């Protein structure tokens, strides 16, 4: 157990001030808007929970939420194992390690609107490498016409864009495992699989927790890339939650319902992250008591 020390608050205080300064005011503003009907800047009416009720009953929202859950789940199922595998196969020393690190990190550094634009060209059957290749091997690929293709393209784009985040975190985590652990495993004659299961995976728990939560919440708020690539289409195939929110807020310019939507949105992410967080912590501690 960690020792109790209330003075540790002083170490946390700068962070608390920095974040609270930027976080509390926006939250209050949104709560304020969500319970009012703003007719014009001088006339506003208190409407209580009316916006919340109407947002919750919105059928299109339910559809967008389901699409979003499916997408975020797919993102986690692909990117987390792929990221771990990538981190395990990256060389640990020498120029190869440096070169791989830089190459892997490149996709993270491209602004999100450019990511969408590049894939827009990259996926085109007439002038893009991906589209042309798929056509050449006999797939009638079109991300603008076919809903499945559009959805898969957004997923592959996200995997391309964000797997490096998981890989870099895991890679740094792996490098922080002391050699003594591996030596002990070698003496015990442990298999590669056993080393992974009982040494590497438990030691990666901290970074994996960050990776899972980050990828979950960021993919849940994905906006720019599908907006640029497919504009939410064809039909509604790639209209995820934040796109739907923006359509509502900007298209109809209704601050009240949009604010209520934002709060519900936030609460959904919060709830799911909380469940993930607690689940991963339980798995981790069960591991510790059982494995050690």
């Amino acid at each position, binding site marked *: 157990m*960690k*020792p109790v*020390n*209330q003075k*540790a*608050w002083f*170490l*946390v205080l700068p*962070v*608390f001030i*920095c*974040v609270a300064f*930027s*976080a509390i005011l*926006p939250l209050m503003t*949104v709560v304020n808007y969500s319970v009012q009907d703003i007719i014009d800047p001088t006339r506003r009416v208190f409407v209580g929970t009316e916006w919340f009720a109407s947002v919750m009953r919105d059928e299109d929202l339910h559809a967008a939420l389901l699409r979003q859950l499916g997408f975020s789940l797919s993102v986690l199922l692909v990117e987390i194992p792929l990221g771990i*595998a990538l981190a*395990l*196969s990256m060389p640990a*020393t020498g120029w190869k390690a*440096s070169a791989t690190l*830089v*190459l*892997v*990190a*490149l996709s*993270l*550094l*491209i*602004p*999100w*609107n*450019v990511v969408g*634009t*590049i894939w827009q060209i*990259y996926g085109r059957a*007439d002038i*893009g*490498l*991906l589209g042309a290749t798929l056509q050449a091997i006999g797939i009638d690929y079109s991300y603008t016409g076919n809903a499945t293709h559009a959805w898969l393209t957004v997923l592959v784009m996200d995997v*391309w864009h964000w797997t490096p985040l998981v890989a*870099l*975190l895991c*890679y*740094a*985590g*792996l*490098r*922080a*495992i*002391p050699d*003594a652990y591996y030596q002990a495993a070698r003496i015990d004659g442990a298999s590669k699989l056993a080393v992974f299961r009982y040494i590497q995976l438990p030691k990666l728990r901290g970074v994996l927790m960050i990776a899972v939560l*980050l990828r979950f919440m960021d993919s849940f708020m994905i906006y720019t890339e599908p907006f640029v690539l497919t504009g939410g289409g064809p039909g509604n195939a790639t209209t995820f939650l*934040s796109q739907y*929110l923006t359509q509502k807020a900007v298209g109809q310019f209704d601050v009240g319902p949009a604010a209520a939507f*934002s709060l519900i949105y*936030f609460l959904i*992410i*919060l709830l799911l*992250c909380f469940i993930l967080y607690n689940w991963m912590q339980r798995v981790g501690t069960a591991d510790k008591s059982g494995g050690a």
Partner: protein
Amino acid sequence: MHENRFHKRSLFLLAYLLFAVLPIYWMVNMSFKTNEEILASFSLLPQQFTWDNYKVIFTDASWYSGYLNSLLYVAINTVISLTVALPAAYAFSRYSFLGDKHVFFWLLTNRMTPPAVFLLPFFQLYTTLGLMDTHLAVALAHLVFNVPLAVWILEGFMSGIPREIDETAYIDGYSFPRFFLTIFIPLIKAGIGVAAFFCFMFSWVELLLARTLTSVNAKPIVAVMTRTVSASGMDWAVLAAAGTLTIVPGAIVIWFVRHYIAKGFAMGRV
């Protein structure tokens, strides 16, 4: 058998690298073409090679100052984020105190808000403070998602370091600041490298807040780029050139922190 295993790993790595690099290759390829060539035909290499797109960026002040503005606020943001996050992460990883778990999780909840939510309140806040269109405004606004991230990453790395090291140092008569700066920070170099890179990266690519809080003096490159969509259609070639150039600073950053990430630390020596 060992040979085999090695080959499988390298093959997988090479396959992934190919997948990772091809879209970027396509962007670089586009940046050396003219718009007509990009839209007219499929070619693996530019047929009419041109530097014009890069010339546009390097000769137009509104383009290249975009890069400088972005670099400036990203640097300010990364330094502040790490400075405040280091002691806090240490507190979370070493002590329990009133509300520690709640504060720790609350920090991350600030990343869960759709960024659009922040726009209007931030605009009002920074206008009131007279900070609009300054680099400081963007740097401060980006703290809301970078500080929690830095705290979480650093806490993860610090928790991997046995507490006995702290205790031994205190018994040896080290004060907290001296222990922290001379013993502890070198031990978590890998974590600091990763955290610095992620702070840099997330601040570098953020568009919505940076665009809202700036107009002329501190306008970031991501906002300048949206200009390539104009009435005459999309300027794909210049956008590709600008996109290629946005990778460069980050690649330099990762080149510098690569040792921190790759080395980790050897516990045997402590």
